[in-house]
């Protein structure tokens, strides 16, 4: 279902970005915003979902929650990498720099990205079993604290040059731009849901095959 939704929404979102949303005073470069921001929000959603599954593992001991947490974090890192690359491309044209260390939001997003990238080092340095699952769940929960900090960093900063598309008065854009943004966000979330189910099915199949191989050996 999510795969169908993603397959339908992605082409629609690209068509809306290039043929419906107007080019504003920022120029054509602003078109990167429609994919960059939804990808960043999806990365937050992935990490949040991974942490939620980690909590479910620790709290209720839900079977499979550890694997679900791992897959969500894996996808979060992929979406995070896409955020950093698309953001750098936007910044190179707009600011003349690929990266600015003075920008709190960029640095905090990088910290969040590196934190969850290190999750894999932890996971693969411990033998599979309940101890690894518990450690990974706790780690995923610690990382989730960085999400609101990263998200709110730009609003807490006194001086910034990173543009603010949303503030307390709502979206700072035309209705057609906001509509395009919402479709792009829905497309990215649908893409995440589809990839999540796809990867999870592969991992479960892999685990069952391993079990079967041990039984037949």
């Amino acid at each position: 279902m999510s795969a169908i939704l993603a397959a339908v929404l992605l082409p629609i979102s690209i068509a809306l970005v290039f043929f419906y949303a107007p080019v504003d005073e920022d120029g054509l470069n602003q078109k990167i915003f429609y994919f960059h921001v939804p990808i960043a929000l999806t990365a937050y959603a992935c990490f949040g979902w991974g942490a939620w599954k980690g909590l479910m593992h620790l709290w209720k001991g839900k079977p499979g929650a550890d694997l679900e947490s791992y897959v969500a974090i894996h996808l979060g890192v992929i979406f995070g990498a896409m955020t950093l690359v698309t953001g750098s491309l936007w910044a190179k044209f707009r600011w003349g720099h690929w990266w600015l260390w003075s920008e709190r939001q960029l640095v905090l997003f990088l910290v969040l990205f590196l934190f969850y990238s290190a999750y894999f080092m932890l996971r693969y340095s411990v033998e599979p079993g309940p101890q690894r699952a518990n450690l990974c769940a706790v780690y995923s929960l610690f990382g989730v604290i960085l999400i609101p900090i990263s998200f709110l960093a730009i609003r807490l900063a006194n001086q910034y040059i990173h543009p603010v598309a949303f503030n307390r008065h709502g979206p700072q854009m035309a209705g057609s731009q906001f509509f395009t943004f919402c479709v792009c966000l829905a497309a990215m979330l649908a893409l995440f849901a589809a990839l999540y189910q796809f990867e999870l099915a592969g991992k479960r199949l892999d685990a069952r095959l391993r079990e079967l191989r041990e039984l037949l050996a």
Partner: protein
Amino acid sequence: MSTEEKYVAAAYLVVFAFVLVYFLIMALKLARLEREVGELAELARKRADG
């Protein structure tokens, strides 16, 4: 193509490339799983034949 257009095209191509590479890796993994299923089926058949 202007510099601005090149950056916009690059940003969208990067997203496309990421998703494409992801699917490529998943397809390779799926092929491995398919091969393993075949091997296990063969093993089970041999066991059944005695």
